[in-house]
């Protein structure tokens, strides 16, 4: 034991990134002058010394086997001197100096099922969460819906014909790992039934004051049932956020019949042109319909198509809606506007229309 403990290394942090940078990057770090997109998924960065770095970006499902990662490593050895990186949206990029190797690299990537694209006015992959693959609080799967949507939007990944950038993100519950709440289109898993309280387990597994305090609307009250200290949920106050489940496993919200997903539109994180903003509710609920979630795929496709057809150059989803107004958005997309669209939480009043700037109906 003591021998093992002595050998243990801790608190070293990640390896220094310099170990993994290609020579052309080390030589031109901080000296890049401009870049150009040469074709979908391929760009060149040119430095002050006129050095060129070519990047080829390929699609990834994020969930990768070590077998696939080794294949990427082999491809990197063959074409990019062993150097590669991953992007903030989970794509893989090969970094090279020899332009002539780009076409055979793209061919090799295609042959193992990884199309090249995702740069410029295109969709650059969907960032997503674990879903049923690995999460306890998921109201829907993530990888499956994402796969089904990207199969449908593949041409917008491998070409550059969109009005502007299209960022789609997917979170399988309201905990929202990742920034889905500021995306052009966000898909969000939702619960719609009250927590199923396990009164036998609850007193053994959860602290009741912590549990009560976890509820944003104070809907959870301590009660005694059959002599056991447990809690009750005030039905009219529950907004299905699942905060209680996060602190207490005996408050199960997952429900095979009523869980599903919602769709939000018009958010962005970039400061370009307009300020960063949240996505707003477009569709309150669509059912879980595995394996391909046709309702969700159709809804996303419809919103993307209407945006493509109507937006001006550079106009992101939210900027386009700013210009045409929400009534027109609902009309053009043929999405019904209903009670759930009107906010009723803390800052609800800020979203009411307080002017007569109303377009022709």
């Amino acid at each position: 034991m003591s021998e093992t403990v002595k050998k243990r290394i801790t608190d070293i942090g990640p390896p220094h990134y310099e170990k993994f940078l290609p020579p052309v990057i080390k030589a031109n770090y901080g000296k890049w002058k401009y870049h150009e997109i040469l074709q979908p998924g391929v760009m060149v960065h040119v430095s002050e010394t006129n050095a060129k770095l070519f990047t080829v970006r390929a699609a990834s499902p994020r969930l990768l086997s070590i077998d696939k990662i080794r294949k990427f490593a082999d491809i990197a050895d063959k074409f990019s001197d062993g150097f590669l990186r991953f992007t903030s949206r989970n794509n893989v990029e090969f970094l090279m100096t020899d332009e002539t190797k780009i076409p055979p690299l793209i061919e090799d990537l295609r042959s193992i099922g990884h199309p090249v694209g995702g740069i410029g006015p295109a969709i650059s992959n969907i960032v997503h969460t674990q879903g049923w693959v690995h999460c306890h609080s998921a109201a829907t799967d993530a990888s499956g819906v994402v796969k089904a949507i990207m199969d449908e939007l593949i041409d917008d990944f491998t070409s550059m014909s969109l009005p502007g950038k299209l960022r789609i993100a997917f979170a399988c519950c309201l905990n929202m790992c990742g920034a889905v709440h500021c995306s052009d289109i966000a898909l969000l898993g939702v619960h719609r039934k009250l927590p199923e309280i396990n009164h036998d387990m609850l007193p053994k597994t959860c602290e009741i004051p912590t549990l009560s305090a976890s509820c944003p609307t104070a809907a959870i009250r301590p009660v005694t049932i059959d002599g056991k200290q447990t809690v009750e949920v005030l039905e009219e106050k529950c907004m299905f956020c699942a905060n209680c489940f996060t602190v207490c496993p005996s408050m199960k919200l997952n429900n095979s019949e009523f869980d599903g997903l919602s769709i939000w539109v018009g958010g962005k994180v970039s400061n370009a042109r307009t300020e960063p903003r949240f996505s707003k509710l477009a569709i309150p609920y669509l059912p879980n319909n595995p394996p391909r979630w046709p309702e969700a795929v159709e809804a996303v496709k419809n919103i993307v198509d209407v945006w493509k057809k109507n937006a001006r150059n550079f106009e992101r989803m939210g900027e386009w809606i700013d210009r045409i107004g929400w009534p027109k958005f609902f009309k053009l997309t043929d999405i019904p506007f209903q009670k759930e669209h009107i906010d009723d939480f803390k800052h609800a009043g800020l979203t009411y229309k307080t002017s007569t700037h109303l377009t022709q109906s």
Partner: protein
Amino acid sequence: MSEEVKTPKLDDLEKGPWPSFVSEIKTAAKTNKMAKDLLGQLEQSYEDKIGHWKHGGIVGVLGYGGGVIGRYSDLPDKFPNVSHFHTVRVNQPAGWYYTSDILRKLCDIWERHGSGLTNMHGSTGDMVLLGTTTDQLESTFQELTAIGFDLGGSGSAVRTPSCCCGQSRCEWACYDTMKLTYDITQHYQDELHRPAFPYKWKFKMSGCPNDCVASIARADISIIGTWRDDIQLVQDEVRNYSKAGLDINRDVVNNCPGKCMDWDGNNLAIENEYCVKCMHCINAMPKALSPGKDRGAAILIGSKAPIMQGAQLSSVLIPFVKLDDEESYKDLYEVFDAIIDLWCEEGKSRERIGEFIRRVGLANFVEAIGLEPTPEMVGAPRDNPYIFYQIEK
């Protein structure tokens, strides 16, 4: 592996042009029994329309309070090889750069100790090693540290900091995001591995206001590159964009939020005093325009996802700092440490810093950490007259 798992629903997701996560799981399942049971359990979820993972438990490696997420199947009899299926978060190299050599070493470790499945990468930025048993955690950890890697953060701790590729490849980076990210990660190692905060704490570093790591939407501290002098401008290149078909008035000038540009068909004039550094004109004409030379970053604070009181974007704390050397990093850490101390002292359990600031008020918060209020901190001054005047005694 013996008998084949039947997965009619998942098989459908092997069709189509987008790379399939099902194919990845199936590949791993050929040689790994955990991956095989994962495939079986996932098919069961597709059948039942519900997840089959139980609430996490506390598992980890000696001396650390985080970095491993406990995960247990709720169908352990049917899928015994994923009855324990814990996630290991591995702190990624800044900018997500790798060599083929180091990736192979990581794969070898995960072949020996886990499911052979990964996420490259998780939402926060870590490399995610997806699924192993408790008895494999310590050996996985020791083999990782032997090749220079360490675990990432989880729970109420500093979460693994992440950044865009910054100056390594991008001409727009206004500071060295990878260097700062590496430095912050090293500076906060103790706070990263040993959760002692009211709730999670995320640092995200973006090199310019395009914010490729979405720091303004999901980081407690968002460090976003910007500049304070004039945009660098090459008139001939602007003319080239015009000749190549870009409608400079419609697509660039009319999209300028500062309304500070004018194009007369031959010259682009910029009233830099009113430029808000949004990046649009630079994005549209990267060969003609670039950020100024006096570069640094804006420090924003408090963004988060909805849990608990609703989502927030980060808001400006310090409009501009230079980040040219380690000395400037130290000044930043002094500010961060003052904020963290206050939050640890006064914050409620599971209250992110953004929600804490909303509760106590930005003005009180700024005063408590020793900063002066400035107009850059607000979109507008208050419009309600209920003011808590404090006349000095």
